[in-house]
């Protein structure tokens, strides 16, 4: 049971959070300008590294704030 550091509520059990996957994937400014391939990348393709991973979490059972952190996907250590 990981401790996830919520910026507002402090560290809480992971079971209070909703996982949001890779951070920093922006909604395309102009979807129409994208080819189907490019649109598919936005829809379905996310990084899946073995090691440090910047990812999003939402404190769904608490303040409902979204935030991102870097976690090592092998050790589960929160790096920053």
């Amino acid at each position, binding site marked *: 049971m990981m401790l996830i550091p919520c910026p507002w*509520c402090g560290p*809480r059990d992971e*079971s*209070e959070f909703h996982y949001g996957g890779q951070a920093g994937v922006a909604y395309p400014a102009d979807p129409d300008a994208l080819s189907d391939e490019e649109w598919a990348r936005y829809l379905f393709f996310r990084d899946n590294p073995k090691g440090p991973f910047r990812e999003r979490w939402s404190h769904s*059972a608490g*303040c409902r704030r979204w935030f991102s952190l870097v976690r090592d996907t092998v050790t589960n250590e929160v790096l920053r």
Partner: protein
Amino acid sequence: MAERNSPLGGAADRLAAVAAATGGAVTVAEVPFLTQLNVRTRPSGDVNVLQLGPDEWLVVGSSASAVGAAVDVSAQRTTVAVGGSRVLDLLAMGCAIDLHPRVFRVGDCAQTTLAHAPVIIWRRETEFWILVRSSFAAHLADWIVDAAQEFTAGD
């Protein structure tokens, strides 16, 4: 005109019986019909609530984002007051956060889950107030009555 009904109005007797059964180790009662106003704004620094009159209050804080919102959520949650000599042990059976007085002081509050139900836990002088979504109130009451069995006499 028929009176109002609070989420745990029908459970009052069952909740009252807990104190007797546990010899005061656990006390529990609903605090119904509290006014609750959800205010959305992001002040920087202190926030104060000023009473301007019998029916008027003012939330004051040096605000970064002026735009706010106030929503009446009085009936969204009801309040369950739990106390007694073993209240910390009782809550520890269903709540994962640390409520030790060194960490969670009088006046502190936390939004978390208790018995898998979303709650706001607020530490008062002699007891905890649990603000629980009205639809979960009956579940929480049942859970507390069950958990309190651990503290009932008979051993």
